[in-house]
């Protein structure tokens, strides 16, 4: 089997996909769902329900709060208990809707049948209609970044999409949610890809799957016989292949230029398999995004597994369903060990971007003592963006933001390969992330200043013209 991969850097973390062959279970409904209003990149949604309102699964509870935003739907039926602050995956308190669960009633508009709807049977679905349905049902990128999908499906007029690339890579260790979804819903995913291709008006689709999932590759190779425009691309296992830019490079050999360029500038629209599935459900079944596949995993966990979870279910409940927190010092991650976010409490709810709850115990949970840099340059060869992490980290620690910017710190995708590979256990990414945030702040401030100056100049010119 000929495999492809991205060309610069990369590391090989231990896979630890212990839940790969554990069939997905439906998680129990929570007693109280906590649904944060900010589950996506962009403006938080605005709540449209208040205390005492009755909702069903699929009822709109918050509408999009701006252009880059997405509506949020109730995942359960019951009564709104309050609209208050709750700790979400960012670790901070953010507004959320609390719903006391009563029964499990769904909105009538949702088609709950298992029948596979084919796009070819629905000529009424124009690209605009597809994008509208995706937007209306609150679909966001399911890979973790949670960028509203409808925006990605309407590329800027300067760029032309040529391919849809579906990310079935799942390069993060431990996580198997996408793999289970691929094994259990291959047909739906492929229909979802067709829908995505129609939405961005292209006739070529690729599904990139890493070769550590041979069963998925085989299954999709069989299924794509009925989808002549879609091709399965087997990829050599390497982290961070699931990064958008790395995936585009691996599949179509094009490198997205430095920010602010996005993949569509080189002709690629990248979507996760989970997103393809959510798009299928949103478009064909009119089902808003309110549940998702979540892997609950950890070496010390008694019964790790994969679950279909309603948004707003507290992670505590999932962990208990898997046998409870192990003894010892634990680190609870929303996401995988490479890019996941460590949580200070187990009461954090599952949101649209939660692909996994990973529990690292004892030694796995702790960092090792940092030593002085020995300039081995392993971080340089591991960086998938061709940066020099040791240099960026030092510059950031010394607050040399100007040189940081010159050394392309904003290109950093925060994949953590540098810190993963560092033999001296240095907190490279901790420093780089701070530097990147600061430099991006400086760039934004500069842009705002330039815009203001331009506006002032224009006004002056207008006045002079008068």
């Amino acid at each position, binding site marked *: 089997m000929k495999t492809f991969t991205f060309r610069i850097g990369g590391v090989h973390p231990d896979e630890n996909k212990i839940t790969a062959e554990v069939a997905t279970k439906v998680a129990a409904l929570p007693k109280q769902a906590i649904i944060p209003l900010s589950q996506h990149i962009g403006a938080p949604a605005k709540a449209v329900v208040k205390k005492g309102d009755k909702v069903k699964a699929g009822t709109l509870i918050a509408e999009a709060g701006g252009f880059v935003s997405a509506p949020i739907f109730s995942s359960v039926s019951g009564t709104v208990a309050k609209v208050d602050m709750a700790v979400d995956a960012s*670790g901070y308190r953010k507004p959320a809707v609390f719903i006391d669960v009563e029964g499990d009633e769904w909105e009538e508009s949702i088609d709950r049948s298992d029948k596979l709807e084919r796009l070819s049977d629905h000529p009424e679905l124009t690209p605009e209609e597809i994008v509208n349905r995706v937007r209306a049902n609150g679909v966001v990128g399911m890979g973790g970044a949670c960028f509203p999908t409808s925006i990605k499906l309407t590329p800027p007029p300067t760029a032309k999409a040529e391919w849809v690339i579906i990310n079935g890579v799942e390069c993060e260790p431990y996580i198997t949610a996408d793999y289970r979804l691929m094994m259990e819903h291959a047909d739906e995913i492929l229909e979802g890809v067709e829908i995505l291709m129609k939405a961005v008006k292209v006739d070529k689709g690729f599904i990139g799957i890493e070769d550590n999932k041979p069963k998925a590759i085989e299954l999709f190779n069989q299924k794509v016989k009925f989808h002549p425009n879609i091709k399965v691309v087997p990829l050599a296992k390497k982290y961070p292949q699931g990064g958008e830019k790395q995936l585009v490079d691996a599949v179509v050999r094009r490198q997205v230029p430095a920010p602010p360029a996005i993949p569509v500038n080189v002709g690629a629209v990248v979507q996760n398999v989970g997103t393809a599935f959510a798009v299928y459900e949103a478009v064909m079944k009119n089902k808003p995004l309110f549940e998702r596949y979540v892997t609950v995993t950890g070496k010390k966990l008694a019964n790790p597994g994969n679950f279909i979870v309603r948004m707003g279910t507290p992670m505590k409940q999932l962990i208990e369903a898997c046998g409870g927190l192990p003894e010892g010092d634990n680190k609870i991650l929303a996401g995988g060990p490479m890019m996941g976010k460590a949580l*200070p*409490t187990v009461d954090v709810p599952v949101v649209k971007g939660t692909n996994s709850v990973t529990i690292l115990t004892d030694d796995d949970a702790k960092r090792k003592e940092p030593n002085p840099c020995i300039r081995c340059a392993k971080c340089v060869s591991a960086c998938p963006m061709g940066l020099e992490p040791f240099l960026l980290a030092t510059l950031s620690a010394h607050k040399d933001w100007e040189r940081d910017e010159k050394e392309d710190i904003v290109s950093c995708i925060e994949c953590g390969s540098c810190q993963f590979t560092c033999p001296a256990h240095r907190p490279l990414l*901790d420093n780089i*992330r*701070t530097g990147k945030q600061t430099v991006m702040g400086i760039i934004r401030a500069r842009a705002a200043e330039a815009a203001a100056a331009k506006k002032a100049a224009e006004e002056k010119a207008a006045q002079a013209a008068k």
Partner: protein
Amino acid sequence: MYLIIPIIVLGLVGLIAAIILYACSKKFAVEEDPRLGAISEVLPQANCGGCGFPGCSGFAAACVNASAKGSLGDLNCSVGGPECMGKIADILGLAAGEATPKVAVVRCNGSCANRPRIAQYDGLMTCRTVNSCGAGETACGFGCLGCGDCVAACKFDAIHMNPETGLPEVDDEKCVACGACVKACPRFIIELRKKGKGKGMRIWVDCVNKDKGAAAKNACKAACIGCGMCEKVCQFDAVHIENNIAYIDQDKCRLCRKCESVCPQDAIHSNGFPKPVEKKKLADLLPKPKPEAEAAPAEQPTAPAAEAKPAENADNNNEQNKEA
């Protein structure tokens, strides 16, 4: 003869060099306002940037520019103090502005004892890094992270971590109010406030937690719960609650310390007063009801209850806020 030739040659070389140097110094002379140099001499040359300009030379240039307008305006070198500003004003032939001395105030009292740890942070120990990791080691997403970015930023050795409380403490004597710590703090806890008369008489709310009462109180025993007692007791309209947090406006505050004496959370602190404050009940401090207001002393019944169970009171308040 052998002696004379080198002397002549060297003399000629020297002469030519002198001519070139003179020509260059005339041709490429940089015209500089003599006042710039004079101002730079009186400035402390700490280049701290506390004035908002890039270093002391930048500030000197700003002063010269301002003199064209006839006044130094807001320009102030907090390090040099009024003495230095007076000298600058003399150089420029202006009247010096009256600048009130300020001092950095750390507005968090979430010491180890007050604020229970719920998690352990493991990684690079700078406040900025911890801040991007969520609320940090405690449940308070607003309070001090205790890694000392402010200490590292201070060029005057005026702020230090107290190992007992885990909080930074400002040395009034050394602090020049340059504002470096204010900028360094990722959570905007430190504020430059008026130093106050005497030994630095000032009063401030020692908390920046914007969570609602119950959440704030769960996170930290010393948190401001936004109960509003201080707002009610203040006769000068100086204390206001916004986003569940009280803030004392120094321009209006007359240092009567009533707010401090009623605060159920002891979240209002003072400095430089001769005596510690006496705790009082809200009801005793409220102005005597005037005849027309007598009909509706709505505060009276709630106040004792509030004293006993402040958290619930805060909740009530919040409920009211929400409904409103």
